[in-house]
């Protein structure tokens, strides 16, 4: 079974620039999560999709972050404009049932 695919693996941008991350979940998984993990901390949920609908986006900084999951499969997470404090690993995960989540390798974002 193919795992969760994310790209790019690494990204370095200057502050105030924009960036987009892509995630392809495991086939058939209805639930998709985007987490932000700052160094030394646990993953923080940014947004959770069930198919192409948003279940929870209460911790998504909506003034600069946006996410979509068109057709209930792939998802993109965008940051515009980026700030220094956005430097983190962005993890995408998917789940068939909403509990045991399978994670992608993540995208390490560095904002300089």
């Amino acid at each position, binding site marked *: 079974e193919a795992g969760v695919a994310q790209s790019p693996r690494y990204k370095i941008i200057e502050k105030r620039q924009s960036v987009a991350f892509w995630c392809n979940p495991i086939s058939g998984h209805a639930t998709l999560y985007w987490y932000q993990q700052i160094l030394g901390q646990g993953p923080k949920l940014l947004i959770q999709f*069930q198919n192409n609908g948003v279940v929870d986006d209460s911790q998504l900084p909506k003034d600069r972050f946006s996410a979509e999951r068109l057709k209930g499969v792939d998802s993109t997470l965008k940051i515009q404009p980026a700030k220094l404090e956005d430097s983190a690993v962005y993890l995408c995960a998917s789940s068939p049932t*909403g509990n045991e989540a399978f*994670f992608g390798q993540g995208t390490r974002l560095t904002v300089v």
Partner: protein
Amino acid sequence: EDKVVQSPLSLVVHEGDTVTLNCSYEVTNFRSLLWYKQEKKAPTFLFMLTSSGIEKKSGRLSSILDKKELFSILNITATQTGDSAIYLCAVEARAGGTSYGKLTFGQGTILTVHP
């Protein structure tokens, strides 16, 4: 707001030692508690616990849940250098107003095992 707290935040041991990692939680509409191991980037699944008092085991790792006291422990016996990682505890609860589950993670315990 759902809360998951892990302790200790970091732990340094020598090979062969036994370690116990703790996870306490305060959530509404609890469904399950999960343990993950994170070595490089992607957390990998270890255990899912839903019932109190039933130990889950996998090799040298074991875990148990206490739903009355709202905590779980993860034990690792005869530690090896390959056990060095961040151990994450996550609690799945029903997302408010929906029937879907939502995963909230603790801050993790960084375990370092020296030869």
